[in-house]
């Protein structure tokens, strides 16, 4: 050890002591400082009406206003001396969208004052009238709404922002310690990246709506890894998936019982062998199938994408044009049924009202294998109806169409993941793992959601229902309609798994999150390649 390194290690030790001393911080110390108007506060109602009145006075035929107050936190942890909090943010915004002369205008800022919201109302209307010069067809809003007021809070047991950093670090480090203590032939460690968000959103419109909602996001990512020589392998705690939960997710998950199997898998994965590129029958776990459905059906069925409104940003959709697709396009076999909703408890797109004040209903997207509907909003609608899919990441962004929660309907037989694996004569099992916060996760697609690939966190070969060897660097390639047509068997109701998907959309870009459920599924004759090999 060089002297420089000794000094450095010494510094680490002293800082670790500071860290330990800091654990005494009282939890909830910040809550007394919360001073923004909360849900239903008369001040917000007053500001909202001033904004809307200013927009109407300036000539808007319709206007809506959003206030968002967003707390965000991100924490990464490796060990007691190596961790950080790259994000500890509070963001307040107000945004006003107006319709004038048949075009949208938008204005937003951070300041919640009467003068400012009135200015934004006028400014947005000027923008709308100006933008109308660039339109021949006037925007018309579907689903005229009755006036409504209300409040809704996404149910969580423990608000993550009421939990001290000390407690969070303690829970995470205890888990890491448990991983490191497992008796394994090679060193095993853990790494955690955690994202929390709480958003209070108030919406009011010239239709008479005044609605306040509070949403939560919890996205934990815990990786267990090991290395030997130049080989390394890692797995994630798959039961930790992104959803609309609070801190109870960590305390109620009983993660310790997963550790022995995870460590066993990750050590065995060191001996993983390369894949022989070929077509294989594959069994995907429920989380992976959920992500496949989320992107290739959920995102692909966004009507604005289908119509080309997203062409210059994140792309279009293979489920186009509507007249050739709806009720006609057989995406998969009759057992493929997919519904959309914004009501699933704990799912990331769950709301009581969407960003236009519409109460979303459940609807079918794929029925008996056939595409039957698209996601819609009041301005991008079908048959004069919005499905309630409007959303905005914060009030600084204009509301846009986004994917609601997507649920693959389980099969009627009580088939489990293990049953599907047991039925595989020769094939591969693909377990997707948890997506790193901000990443697309194990399933990625092209700009039409048509072609994509699955990069499993855990992949193994099966012969006659038994695991024979772990596979390294495999990549499942798919073309969505062919993949779904090859759907051979799906899991039953008890095998349903919910996760969350984050997607970027729009210009300027916004991140939208939605919940998605899947069941374990077997797909036949899917091409699998070695992702480390070039052409």
């Amino acid at each position: 050890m060089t002297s420089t390194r000794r000094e450095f290690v010494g510094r680490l030790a002293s800082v670790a002591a500071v860290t330990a001393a800091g654990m005494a911080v009282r939890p909830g110390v910040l809550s007394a400082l919360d001073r923004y108007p909360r849900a239903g506060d008369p001040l917000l109602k007053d500001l909202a009406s001033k904004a809307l009145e200013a927009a109407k006075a300036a000539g808007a035929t319709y206007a809506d206003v959003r206030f968002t107050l967003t707390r965000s936190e991100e924490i990464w942890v490796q060990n007691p001396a190596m961790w950080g909090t790259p994000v500890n943010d509070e963001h307040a915004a107000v945004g006003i969208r107006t319709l004038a002369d048949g075009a949208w205008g938008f204005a937003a800022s951070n300041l919640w004052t009467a003068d400012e919201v009135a200015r934004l109302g006028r400014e947005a209307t000027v923008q709308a009238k100006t933008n109308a010069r660039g339109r021949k067809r006037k925007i018309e809003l579907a689903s005229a709404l009755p006036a409504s007021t209300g409040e809704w809070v996404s149910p969580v047991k423990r608000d993550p922002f009421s939990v001290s950093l000390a407690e969070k670090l303690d829970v995470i480090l205890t888990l890491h310690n448990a991983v490191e203590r497992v008796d394994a032939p090679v060193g095993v460690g853990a790494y955690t990246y955690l994202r929390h968000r709480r958003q209070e959103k108030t919406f009011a419109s010239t239709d008479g709506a005044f609605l306040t909602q509070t949403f939560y996001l919890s996205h934990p990512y815990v990786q267990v890894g090991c290395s030997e020589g130049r080989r390394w392998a890692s797995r994630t705690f798959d039961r930790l998936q992104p959803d609309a939960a609070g801190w109870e997710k960590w305390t109620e998950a009983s993660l310790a019982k997963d550790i022995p199997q995870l460590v066993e898998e990750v050590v065995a994965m060191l001996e993983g062998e390369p894949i022989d590129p070929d077509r294989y029958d594959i069994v995907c776990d429920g989380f992976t199938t959920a992500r496949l459905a989320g992107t290739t059906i959920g995102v692909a069925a966004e009507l604005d994408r289908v119509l080309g409104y997203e062409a210059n940003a994140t792309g279009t959709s293979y489920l186009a044009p509507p007249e050739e697709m709806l009720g006609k396009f057989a995406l998969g076999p009759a057992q493929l049924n997919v519904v959309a909703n914004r009501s699933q408890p704990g799912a990331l797109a769950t709301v009581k009202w969407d960003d236009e004040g519409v109460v979303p209903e459940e609807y079918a997207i794929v029925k008996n294998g056939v595409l039957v509907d698209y996601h819609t909003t009041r301005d991008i609608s079908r048959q004069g109806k919005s499905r309630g899919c409007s959303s905005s990441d914060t009030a600084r962004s204009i509301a846009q169409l986004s994917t609601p929660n997507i649920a693959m309907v389980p099969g009627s037989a009580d088939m489990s993941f293990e049953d599907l694996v047991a039925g595989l004569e020769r094939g591969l099992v693909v377990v997707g793992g948890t997506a790193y916060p901000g990443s697309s996760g194990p399933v990625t697609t092209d700009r039409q959601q048509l072609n994509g690939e699955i990069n499993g966190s855990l992949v193994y070969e099966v012969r006659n229902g038994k695991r024979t060897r772990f596979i390294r660097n495999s990549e499942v390639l798919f073309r969505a309609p062919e993949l779904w047509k090859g759907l051979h068997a799906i899991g039953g109701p008890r095998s349903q798994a919910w996760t969350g998907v984050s997607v970027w959309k729009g210009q300027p870009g916004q991140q939208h999150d939605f919940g998605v459920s899947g069941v374990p599924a077997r797909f036949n004759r899917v091409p699998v390649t070695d992702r480390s090999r070039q052409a």
Partner: protein
Amino acid sequence: MSILQGGPKRLIPVRDERFLSADACKELLARAAKLGRGGGDVQMSIRSRWTGNVRWARNEISSGGDTTDHFIEITRVVRGAAGTASTSRTDDASLENCIRRAEERLRYGTPNDDATPLRRAETYLKPELWSDATFAVDAAARAQIQQQLVGPAVAEQLLSAGYLEVAAIGNGVINTGGLFAYVPETRAEYSVTVRNARATGSGWAGVAAKDWRTIDAQRISATALDKCKRSADPVAVEPGRYTVILEPQAVSDLMLPLMWSLWRVPAEMGQGPWADGARVPTPLMYPGGPPLEGANPGDAIGMSKIGKRVLDSRISISADPTDPDIPFVPFAWNSTPMRPVKWIEDGVLKELSYPRFYALSQLNKPDPLNNNYAFRMSGGTTSVDEMIKTTERGLLITRLVNVRQVDYPSLLQTGTTSDGVWLIERGEITKAVKNFRFRESPLFAFNNVDVMGPPVRVLQQMPTVVPAVRVRDFSLTSLADAV
């Protein structure tokens, strides 16, 4: 316009300003300084951004507006410990809340505090980052530009979708130790996608610049339209190894992951593409993850590839805040300077970025080497047309999208081609071909360079100048027939 002399002058909170001025930043610090508890210092890093945009699709404006958004990061430094939190609001209650959150955080300390010790004075470079012309592009101007430029697409019964954004940003770093710097900055970007009604052809073009006047929006619109027409009804060509001409946008799409990987600490830990000599893996490696966040510099016992040739010897990659083509703010969020750097010179790796705690503890230097991913790549003199004429058989590629890393040590990337791929045979473009999935590393591709064109500005989040490049043996692994 007074903005030229350093931004709007009035104090906050006021609302006819589009972004916070230098005086507003000073006033913010003065108020924040009074709100701290337990002595020590307050440092603020401010990014106050006004944007105006117009977005269109199917030849019609679909949305557009003006937004002001502040990002105010406050660091409390007390007895050598630092804690950071951020807010978007400038009122006393919000500042106080932010400071309390930062103070809660500082009690825990971490070994990698990049904020301490506080810098009390700093001399930064003075790049020219402001354009009055950009700041003057208002809603009316944006709508007018859109109307003029979708005309040709309408006339040819094609569908234009596009985006024009102008931004003005007040960037400030200020602390109670006496440091103050404020740089107003403008940005403009313009991009267009033209598709045919049958969705069998798609063309894209786009660029970013400081000064809106340097963006030739008419040429970009025409390029997208031309690519749409010429890319229509593509045929499938067998995947495999091809000589490819990567247009500048595609070069930047493939080079960007290399820019993201230029980290010294992981390299010296034996991780990633820039590690050399004996590799000593730590228990955890995070391919594709944030490379520094698992890094313990105490483990830095390996060697990096600094001093070794890593790319074709004609390639140099540099970044300089005062480069007139890619100017950028001369300080980082933590007030440390952005200095000119040659990452790669004549193909030889010269530098890898490192954070401040590494500079202090390992190099006995006060400053980190920051990398904000703005870069200039050297080029040659061969135009794309000349490259086509001298290609016996190959492909012309417009851009690469959904680029994703599959292997960290080799920087192997995958993704798809998009918005125009053409087959070249005997010096001529002979047909439009379907998109491919590629699997390629910038380390391989830019060691297989044949000829290069003149470097030009492209559309990336940070200022980027790269040439078109003809590359041998580019790996296209399968068809990805989306349009």
